[in-house]
């Protein structure tokens, strides 16, 4: 079973040289720490930056330079700044090669719910609806089961949707799964020590796992 860093590490392997990548808040942010050497990527922050660098050294924080999580960050050689309309313009026109974001639920046909829980204070969707509706390549980083032990990979999302039929790949603490164009989760890899049977047990949506799946290699 993977911890958050493990999920991030596994997702980092999906990043190809030359990619422009948008990382959501939470586990997706951790992915930046695991990008392999020799893989050149540019991180987009949807508040208006391409080429997001690491956090600043203490004392060098700049109130004018933050990421979409409102954290102080830095630029890198080659960075560019633009306004919010252009930022979502490049998202909508699919110039971003890969989007990684978290989810509360994903359905077997690629729907995603990650912004609203009825009865709880709703903070808003931020840029998530734009990202999931536009991106050609979305990977979801999420927990396979909730605290009550219930599957979050469902036949149909129970929570209000963020986007429909848009997710292609899910990486959880237990597995890597593709979402098939015709519907259903296809087991691609298992986390170390996790059995196919267990994954079947905690995947409520349609699962294709009869061929088994290799254990993932993280290093």
């Amino acid at each position, binding site marked *: 079973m993977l911890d958050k860093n493990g999920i991030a590490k596994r997702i980092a392997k999906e990043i190809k040289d030359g990619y422009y990548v948008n990382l959501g808040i939470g586990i997706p942010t951790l992915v930046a720490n695991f990008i392999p050497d020799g893989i050149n990527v540019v991180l987009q922050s949807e508040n208006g930056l391409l080429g997001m660098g690491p956090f600043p*050294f203490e004392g060098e924080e700049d*109130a*004018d330079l933050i990421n979409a999580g409102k954290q102080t960050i830095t630029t890198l050689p080659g960075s560019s*700044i633009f306004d*919010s309309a252009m930022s979502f313009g490049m998202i909508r026109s699919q110039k971003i090669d890969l989007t990684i974001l978290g989810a509360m639920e994903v359905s077997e046909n690629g729907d995603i719910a990650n912004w609203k829980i009825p009865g709880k204070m709703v903070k808003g969707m*931020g840029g998530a*609806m734009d990202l999931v509706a*536009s991106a050609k390549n979305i990977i979801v980083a999420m927990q396979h089961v909730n605290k009550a032990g219930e599957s979050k990979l469902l036949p149909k999302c129970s929570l*209000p949707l963020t986007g429909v039929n848009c997710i292609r790949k899910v990486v959880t603490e237990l597995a890597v799964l593709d979402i098939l164009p015709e519907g259903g989760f296809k087991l691609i890899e298992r986390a170390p020590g996790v059995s196919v049977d267990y994954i079947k047990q905690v995947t409520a949506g349609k699962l294709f796992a009869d061929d088994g799946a290799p254990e993932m290699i993280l290093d």
Partner: protein
Amino acid sequence: MINKVVTGADEAIRDIKDGSTLMLGGFGLCGIPENCITALVKKGVKRLTCISNNAGVDDFGIGLMLQQRQVKKMISSYVGENAEFERQLLSGELEVELIPQGTLATRCMAAGYGMPAIFTPAGVGTEVAEGKEIRNFNGKDYLMEYAFDADFALVKAWKGDTTGNLIFRSTSRNFNPVMAMAGKITIAEVEELVEPGTLDPDHIHTPGVYVHRIFQGANYEKRIEQRTVRPRN
């Protein structure tokens, strides 16, 4: 030379009235029109509709206006980090319309570019799409979203000249240029007000034609919301 300079925030916002619709630039607390907000709190105008990506924090930004119950409605993409906001929302004092961030930005741009509506895939198949026209182009569904109609846009720039040309610094640019284009009256506050000819015409982000009033803000706190740093090695 056309001169847009006003004496300060109080004069700039003089005709913002109870019930006005305002756009306020900024992302989180980054690039917000601090001096205009202070003046609005002092003036005490009520029942404002505020179009702004976020709603500030309890004691800064639009949060200050919420404390004084000056806001009737927020149109935002994300409104976390604000307890008073949550209280007013749950009590029904405050109305909130949540819209996708890209839709928010593009509806501003549409107003500035004289386009009455735009198409975006954001929100298709979600509750955001309810009641909206859906249209298919090349096999993909889009929502038709309307340009915003705001009485005033309040934006914050780094430098500006007396004719209203603006330059933003780093990610404090965010929504400011698109809102600057979109206000019926656009008020720009700047950290540094300079004479025409000081700014390179190629570096100007917002041409002065979009700006109706400009002043150098008396004070900038520029508060940081999430101070994240790394150790020196």
